[in-house]
């Protein structure tokens, strides 16, 4: 199946460059952000920008836009990552039960 060859070269090329500019701008913002806002909690805006960048890359550079079968699979995988690695472990860590006695967390362990 070579229907992927029916492309408008100029239009697609412009698209790539537009995404590049977008990504460069976002990278620039990541450098300015600590001087502008939320400097003490940089983690949050940095991760949000990373997610936006990732979205642009996946949809445009990786041609995922319009893929009827693969997009639900992507959502399933990301949900799994989110649920395992963020929600469930997050619940466990938020309810840390032995923080005062544990060697690796007790105040004497040098923060």
């Amino acid at each position, binding site marked *: 199946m070579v229907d992927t060859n029916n492309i408008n070269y100029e239009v697609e090329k412009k698209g790539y460059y537009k995404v590049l500019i977008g990504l460069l701008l976002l990278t620039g913002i990541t450098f300015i952000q600590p001087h502008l806002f939320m400097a003490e909690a940089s983690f949050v805006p940095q991760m949000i920008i990373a997610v936006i960048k990732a979205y642009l890359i996946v949809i445009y550079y990786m041609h995922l836009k319009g893929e009827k079968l693969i997009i639900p699979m992507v959502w399933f995988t990301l949900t*799994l990552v989110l649920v395992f690695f963020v929600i469930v472990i997050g*619940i*466990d860590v938020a309810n840390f*039960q032995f923080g005062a006695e544990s060697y690796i967390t007790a105040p004497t*362990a040098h923060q």
Partner: protein
Amino acid sequence: MSKTYFDETHCAIGHPKSKFMQWMLTVDHKRIGIMYAAVMFTFFFVAVFTAFAMRLELFAPGAQYMDGDTFNQAFTLHGVIMIFLFVIPGIPAIFGNIVMPLMIGAKDVSFPRLNWFTFWLYIVGCGIALTSIFLGEGVADTGWTFYAPYSLNTGTNVIMALVAAFVLGMASILTGLNFLVTIHRLRAPGMTFFKMPLFVWGIYATAWIQLLATPVVGITLILAILEKYFGIGIFDPSKGGDPVLFQHLFWIYSHPAVYLMILPAFGIMSEIIPTFSRKEIFGYRTIALSSASIAGIGYLVWGHHLYTSGMSDTAKSVFSFLTFFVAIPTGVKFYDWVATMYQGKIVLSTPMIWALGTMITFAIGGMTGITITMIGLDIHLQDTYYSVAHFHYAILGGVVFLMFAGMHYWFPLITGRMYDEGKAKIAFYLNFVGFNLLWFPMFIAGYYGMPRRYFDYLPEFQIYHQVSFVGAVIFISGLIYMFFVFYKGWTKGEKATPNPWNATTLEWHLPTSPPPLENHTKVPYVDFNPYEYHHGEPVVKFDYKTMQRID
């Protein structure tokens, strides 16, 4: 005399003349499945031998001929071989490869050369595991779970075991990937997802687990190697690392792994029950969807292996609740199978009695799992013989018994011959009686406090070990006899017809037995359900030259 897949084959590299090289280089899914079976059962018997050696040592308290360190190595080797080399590749590697493409009317899997590469990757993994026995201080003595911090400090060949497990994990991932693309792309025209046989549903759900869960243990093993070798700190308390994190990462894979083991086995059950009840399966859609939901929910329950690790009570409650929940789809399947048998014309051939025996043993395995899902009970029963009996009833009495059932069911398809029915039944009874005698006393021993992975014990437990030993002898005799029956059947058995059980699914509608290299003469158009019976007879009939329906 038409040619079968034993007479000719496609190869990954070139066109070798020697039969040996044709087997080494074959990309044919049927031959690859047979090679997996040959290697896997060899290692199975090695692991059975280590288990027997342990049972022999444990016959009486005190050291007889093994010291504690060797015993630790024995149960580690037993676990590593059984889990990573045998049960996890298990049914997908053998029957997923041989039967699944036939069931969907395909000529091979989507990536046959990848399939060939994956088989040899598996062999490399086996080789590394085997080598670890003979080098340095010998096999790892950490248990197949490799818990930190002991695995970081012991001098035995832990790194080799971890590398072997990683390589074997990669083989599992690639098999899952291959099967997922095959099932999505190569189904015969007209075969929608809800017209696929339930064994294919089982393989499909399993493939998702192989794909998404295995990488987690892969990276965990790499992190453990980096920790042992470079001291990165994440599992080492002297650097602030948390050994319980290793447990979490390990079980995030290893619990879905047990669903990876049982889902194809349930698929086999769903094939055998309708064929030997001469009746359409009851609740096709619910069984199919329950496979998918077991795969999905099964990702969320790993914490029940960590109840005694120091997790927060909140987390323990969450995991306990989810674990109760995941038992429901399995219960649905059991009810559907029993409903299928109701008012059917039951045929008690060997595959059917294996399946029925498994319903008993897996039900015991599953229900004892529910008891230790309860946090309070688990605090008492964790790491005792109760857990050991539970998972052997579930894995050996569930997955492996159904693998044996599948072997009896698809034996005529793969070999073109039939085994001796009477002798096969005797083998079943030896296995069934021996199995229960071996494992049931352990529930009681565990309840009274016999710890697992101990090479010595208090005299009050001796009676349980002795009964288990007798069971072990009977069970192993049954295993050996069963393989003897297969061997006699393959070499001297009666020639079989392409559809000796008069079943309905596509793998039984081949022109020759054994199948030809290119499977079906022509790919049929599938406008029928997989289990259509009318008054005990299959509805769909084919002309095998044109694969057109003639009913």
